C-alpha cells in the first residue's frame, strides 16, 4: 500500500515510537499515584515529556503543558473553559469541526457571539478582514495553522501580533502543522496551542496536548483524581492537574515523546523541505491533467503537505475507491470535517480527494500516485464525456 493519508494520521511511525510504547507497557505504573518504582518511572517520564514539549513549542513553563487525547479534546477544553457569557469570538472558514462545533454549540446556547472570517476562492483569509471583525467584546481569535483540506498555511505570526496588540487571546489549532513546521509560541504570540500527537509528531493515536501561556484561566471540563490534594473537594487550581483529572495515557505519551525525539533528531526544517518537495512534485505531475481541479494556493511554498483535487464532476469517493482498490493508494475522499471550506470551494456535493504526504513517503510513491491519477483521469473523464 502507498499511504497518502497522513493528514488524517501518520500510519508509518518511527521504530522508536513503537519500542517506546512497548517499553512503557512493560514498565509504567500510574504517574503521580504512589511511590513504587513503576509509579515513579511514569511520573518521571511524564515530567520529562512535559519539558520536551515545552522546549519543542517554546512553552514558557512545562507545567503549562496539558496532556489530552487529541487536538479535538484540547480545543474542547479551551473553548468550553475559557469564555464567559457575552464574549465575542472570531474564527474562520478554514476550520475543522473540532473548532467549529464547540463554537457553534456555545453560540447556540447564547454564551458567545461568533464571527467567521470568510476565505477567498483560493482558500486564504486576509488580515484586514480579521481586524475589521474585532469588537470591544472580542475575547479570542481561534484559528487553524493550516487548512486540513487545502493545506494553505495561515500567517499566524501577523494574526498573533494583531491579537496581542488588541489584548485578545490567540488560540491556534496546530493539528496539521505540529511536527511539520516549526512552531514557537512566543515568537508567534500564541496564547493557547492545541496539538495532536498522531499526525506530524508520529505519536500513537490518543495523544495530544494543550500548551498554555502563563496567566490563561481555563475552567476544568472534567474533575476527579489527580494524585494530589486528595482531601480538597475541588479540583486543584494549579496546572497541569487542573485540566488532567484521571490516569494519563502514559503508554501513548511515551510514544509521543519518541515521535517528537524523531522529529528533533531528523530536523523539522528537513522534514518540512522533504514534505514540500513531495507536495510540489505531485502537484506538478497532476496539474495539467484534463479536467482536474486542484484546491488551495500553490503560489507559495510554505504549505501543509496536502493536495486536494477532483477529476471533472466525478464523485471524490469513486476516485478514492479506485485509487485504493486498483492501485493500493490510500487517500481520503469526502468532506474532511471541514464543512465551511468545502462550501467556499463549491465541493459540498462532490467532496474532494485529498493526498497528504509525510516524511516516510518517497518520490517513487508520489510518481506512482501521479501515474494512477493519470490512468483514472483518462478512463473516467473520457467515459463521462461519452
Amino acid at each position, binding site marked *: 500500500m502507498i499511504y497518502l493519508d497522513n493528514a488524517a494520521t501518520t500510519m508509518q511511525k518511527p521504530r522508536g515510537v513503537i519500542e517506546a510504547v512497548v517499553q512503557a507497557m512493560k514498565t509504567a505504573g500510574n504517574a*503521580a499515584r504512589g511511590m513504587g518504582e513503576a509509579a515513579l518511572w511514569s*511520573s518521571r517520564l*511524564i515530567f*520529562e515529556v512535559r519539558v520536551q514539549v515545552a522546549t519543542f513549542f517554546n512553552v514558557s513553563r*512545562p507545567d503549562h503543558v496539558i496532556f489530552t487525547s487529541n487536538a479535538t479534546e484540547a480545543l474542547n477544553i479551551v473553548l468550553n473553559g475559557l469564555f464567559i457569557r457575552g464574549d465575542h469570538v472570531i474564527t474562520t472558514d478554514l476550520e475543522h469541526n473540532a473548532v467549529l462545533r464547540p463554537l457553534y454549540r456555545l453560540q447556540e446556547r447564547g454564551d458567545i457571539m461568533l464571527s467567521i472570517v470568510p476565505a477567498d476562492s483560493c482558500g486564504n483569509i486576509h488580515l484586514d478582514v480579521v481586524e475589521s471583525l474585532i469588537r470591544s467584546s472580542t475575547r479570542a481569535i481561534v484559528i487553524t495553522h493550516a487548512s486540513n483540506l487545502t493545506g494553505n498555511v495561515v500567517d499566524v505570526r501577523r494574526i498573533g501580533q494583531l491579537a496581542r496588540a488588541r489584548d485578545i487571546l490567540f488560540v491556534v489549532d496546530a493539528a496539521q502543522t505540529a511536527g511539520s513546521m516549526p512552531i514557537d509560541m512566543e515568537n508567534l504570540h500564541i496564547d493557547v496551542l492545541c496539538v495532536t500527537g498522531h499526525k506530524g509528531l508520529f505519536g500513537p493515536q490518543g495523544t495530544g496536548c494543550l500548551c498554555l501561556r502563563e496567566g490563561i484561566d481555563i475552567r476544568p471540563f472534567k474533575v476527579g483524581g489527580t494524585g494530589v490534594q486528595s482531601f480538597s473537594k475541588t479540583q486543584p487550581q494549579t496546572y497541569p*492537574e487542573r485540566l488532567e483529572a484521571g490516569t494519563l495515557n502514559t503508554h501513548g505519551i511515551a510514544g509521543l515523546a519518541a515521535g517528537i525525539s524523531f522529529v528533533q533528531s531528523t530536523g523539522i526544517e528537513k522534514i518540512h523541505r522533504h514534505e514540500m518537495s513531495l507536495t510540489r512534485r505531485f502537484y506538478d505531475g497532476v496539474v495539467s491533467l484534463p479536467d482536474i481541479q486542484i484546491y488551495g494556493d500553490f503560489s507559495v511554498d510554505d504549505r501543509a503537505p496536502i493536495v486536494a483535487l477532483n477529476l471533472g464532476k466525478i464523485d471524490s469517493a469513486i476516485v478514492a475507491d479506485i485509487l485504493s482498490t486498483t492501485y493500493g493508494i490510500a487517500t481520503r475522499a469526502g468532506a474532511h470535517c471541514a464543512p465551511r471550506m468545502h462550501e467556499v470551494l463549491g465541493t459540498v456535493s462532490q467532496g474532494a480527494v485529498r493526498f497528504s504526504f509525510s516524511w516516510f513517503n518517497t518520490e517513487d510513491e508520489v510518481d506512482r500516485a501521479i501515474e494512477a491519477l493519470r490512468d483514472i483521469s483518462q478512463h473516467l473523464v473520457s467515459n463521462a464525456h461519452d
Partner: protein
Amino acid sequence: MKLKEDSVVITFTSTTDAMAAELFFNKKALRGRLIPVPTSITAGCGMAWKAPAEDRDELLTALRREGLRYDKDYRMLL
C-alpha cells in the same frame, strides 16, 4: 533497615513540582531522594524530598535560585 535519621522533608503541591525538583537535585548531585509524604505531614502531593537535616539550607536555596516551587519543609526523625 536503617535507624531513624535527623532529616529534612521538603513537600510539594504538585507532582510536576516534585519531579522538577528531583531532576534538578540529581543533576546538581545534591543528596536525598523522593519518599512518600509521612502521614504526620499534610501536603498536596504524595511525594516529598528527604535529605540529611544539615542539607536543608543548601537544598532550599538551590530550589529558589532555580525558580522551582516547593510547599513546606519539615525537620523530623525519619
